[in-house]
């Protein structure tokens, strides 16, 4: 195996295309956090603080991109929720916006007109859907049909409601 990285001006390969995705409300309440690189809880808390304060203080109709440290932050508001995606510096901003949009579409399809409450009460589902779409900070599947099909398939695998309802609540 020949090692040779002089072809590429910068060392891209040890990086992750997407670094993290955060969903938070207008009040700055975090609704979902997905980290694509290992990070300590301290670092995470710091980033969450920085992101919410930075994004929430933006004027309306500003552009959707920000520079933050060596990353690009792409954010977009859907109803009461802000979606905030951090990508590598050389990544494509417009496509990142559409990553967010596709995720919203997937949530929408699953929950039927998704709202913030759906994500609060079914947070685990929101994570599962995200996992079908992205993996390790890369896109795994872009087709809405394919993703929905595999989510439905896993729902099919689930035990019936009755079985659960017969159990005590606590």
């Amino acid at each position, binding site marked *: *195996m*020949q*090692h*040779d*990285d*002089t*072809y*590429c*001006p910068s*060392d891209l390969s*040890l990086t992750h*295309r997407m670094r993290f995705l955060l969903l938070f409300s207008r009040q700055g309440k*975090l609704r979902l956090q997905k980290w694509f690189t*290992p990070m300590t809880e301290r670092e995470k*808390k710091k980033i969450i603080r920085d992101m919410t304060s930075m994004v929430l203080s933006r*004027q309306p*109709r*500003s*552009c959707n*991109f920000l*520079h933050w440290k*060596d990353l690009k932050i792409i954010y977009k508001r859907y109803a009461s929720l802000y979606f905030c995606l951090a990508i590598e510096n050389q990544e*494509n901003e*417009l*496509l990142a*916006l*559409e990553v967010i949009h596709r995720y919203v579409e997937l949530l929408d399809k699953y*929950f039927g007109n998704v709202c913030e*409450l*759906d994500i*609060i*009460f*079914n*947070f*685990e*589902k929101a*994570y*599962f859907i995200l996992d079908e779409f992205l*993996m*390790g900070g*890369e*896109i*795994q*599947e*872009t*087709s*809405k*049909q*394919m993703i929905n099909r*595999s989510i439905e398939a*896993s*729902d099919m*695998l*689930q*035990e019936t*409601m009755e079985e*659960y309802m017969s*159990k005590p*609540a*606590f």
Partner: protein
Amino acid sequence: MPAVSKGDGMRGLAVFISDIRNCKSKEAEIKRINKELANIRSKFKGDKALDGYSKKKYVCKLLFIFLLGHDIDFGHMEAVNLLSSNKYTEKQIGYLFISVLVNSNSELIRLINNAIKNDLSSRNPTFMCLALHCIANVGSREMAEAFASEIPRILVAGDTMDSVKQSAALCLLRLYKTSPDLVLMGEWTSRVVHLLNDQHMGVVTAAISLITCLSQKNPDEFKTCVSLAVSRLSRIVSSASTDLQDYTYYFVPAPWLSCKLLRLLQCYPPPEDGAVKGRLVECLETILNKAQEPPKSKKVQHSNAKNAILFEAISLIIHYDSEPNLLVRACNQLGQFLQHRETNLRYLALESMCTLASSEFSHEAVKTHIETVINALKTERDVSVRQRAADLLYAMCDRSNAKQIVAEMLSYLETADYSIREEMVLKVAILAEKYAVDYSWYVDTILNLIRIAGDYVSEEVWYRVIQIVINRDDVQGYAAKTVFEALQAPACHENMVKVGGYILGEFGNLIAGDPRSSPLVQFNLLHSKFHLCSVPTRALLLSAYIKFINLFPETKATIQEVLRCDSQIRNSDVELQQRAVEYLKLSSIASTDVLATVLEEMPPFPERESSILAKLKKKKGPGAVSVTELEDNKREGGELNGGGERGPDTSAMSTPSPSADLLGIRSAVPVGAAPASAGSLLVDVFSEAGPAAVSAAVNDDGFLRFVCKNNGVLFENQLLQIGIKSEYRQNLGRMYLFYGNKTSVQFASFTTTVSCPGELQLQLNVQTKPVEPLVEGGAQIQQVLNIECLTDFSEAPLLNIKFRYGGALQNLTLKLPVTINKFFQPTEMASQDFFQRWKQLSQPTQEAQKIFKASHGMDTEVLKAKLLGLGTALLDNVDPNPENYVCAGVIQTKGQQVGCLLRLEPNAQAQMYRLTLRCSKDSVSKRLCELLAEQF
């Protein structure tokens, strides 16, 4: 809570979440959570075995609590149990918990790995995907060790389901990123490349991320992907918007895949095969044409997806930098976007144009948009867009438009957002210096800068203006006059006072002939600011005063009066008090001659890279300032480096820092300013302030002799001889040190310590065992050092040796000759490859250059031997001039590999060399250049 919860409702969980949401205060929330935690803990600890459902519910509650931001210290075991459940939802929650709460507890990792192993071999695609996701999410080394060989097999096996292939590709990518050493290339490699041809678009989309990463690391091995990628791209680009069914996104065929293909191609130079190249150019033209077509949908998603591909195509065009036609078209397209109503597009166009400005083919085309960009700087509502406009102005600046751009930036500064002022100041300062035709314009610009944005003018900026004024005698009179006028303003910024104090202290005499700026007027003007200034500025002013006494003897009495007053000589600040006392004493004791010698004009500063540029680079990352730099290098060639008359080691000399000690009299005499006799006199006068004795100076005599060789005698005196033998492989090295006792008497308490000072301890790992404490007369002992290079480094490890010889303690510190080049692996390549790579490393920060006098003979064989000893491959038939030497190598560190190219041009007539290094990492170029400039 919602009426219906989809899928398997966990009622208990929903109730809990709703309780938390109803909490009125943080305290109530914490109380509720603690209650829940206690409940769950008791359930987990209870005698009754929990059923799967309950376990799942509680684990899910714990997860929720953790995601709220609370610590969770139990439940991991229960989550691991869920992994082996055969009910999908239980397994799924178990994996989610593990993925979110990664725990490095090795006991647990083993259990988790076990469960993953079972799922991977279950042949149930859903279970396999869950397991692969978990590996990718955790991505730890232990997991890589357990699965790095298994996953490639799953990826290329004929019977693997498509969805599993997708997960396997990305999982493998993740492992390759965390532990590249564990993912071994093999028979699967070529099959992975052929996934680019897979029928399933989802498989291609996932696989291409892996292929891109692998190609970056092993371009030769994956070279075949270029033609495959081009033909795939061409099929997508020419397909109708409905051909690709669900992979069409808002009427745009496969935008994600298209962008990834274009990105993969950016890992390679333009295709050599004419047919492939033609096909690719066709694709790029089609993409540019499509941008002009009317949109197929009004939705923003449509235009975003379409333009995402366009911007990626433009990146590829810029990467190739060889198709003038495409470059100019790209530039025109971006020009249209500059006026687009979408803020996002204006932002991206400004950003993308910055890179176009650096290409010689499109630089002029970019410049035609100057008015639009200036307008953007003035009128954009969004500060981040304005910032991009400022970046672009900076990038497109050259001699022809520098005055206009600097003027616009200055006027923008008056109203600029606080967040970008400091950076703007740096940029103005750099442009003013770089494109200064006459230095009076430069001085005016910087003084304006201080007037407009004094608070944002960092030390580097005003240090720099002083350095330049001191080094150019044609501007000194003008600078003195201008700064004198600026100081007349009733309120002027403290930075102005600093510059004023320094410049008048040095060159006030040049304007003293004018009665309006007579010595006393100058002094009174400066002193009128004194009491409003901070301590460092006052200290600087005091130094200016003593310089005045030398320049203008007629001011001596007035200034001594000032120094003598209580507020100076008894000042509570030690620094100020000391200066007042010393200067007063100096002015009364020393004769005029001595005074003139000590207070002589500052010698010129060594020419070096602008410290402002370094600061901007630090602020923005290396890419940000490359643009104008590149232009500059192209136009001015070697002049920048060749112009100054620098000795080989001036860069090692630190630039005198004006604020630290203006005159340098307390620690050392200014270089070349004072003859030895005056020096000793000074020591007498200020004996109490003399420099502290340096305890054990580091001996680095031997250090540089070992840059190009590995074995030899490092050090020798009457007592001790230290020999070295060393060998290096990849990023590892072993060094044998031989300590020889040259006397006939025993050395006692012989100890050696190897230390890595400062940053070096994170860059280099050096391990050794203690040596025997007794070295008999005439004996030799040996010590072995194991060295691991973690990342590139510039300092050297220190070896401290202590022993007793006849009762006297000997203490010696040596620099160990471990230099970055020891980790070189030679790379042979043909001329064409060399120049290809040379060009790719064209960011100005990646290059380091030095011109120096030959200090040894210029014998060809000796030179060759030294270059080979350096560790690189010496390439023949590369440089058109047979006198020149060209080398290539890759430095192996644990974290990364750094490609390095070297060119050495001897000039036998002038007995000079020009040495140029280009490396994929800036710091390496710089360090290698420093090391090598001492070798020839």
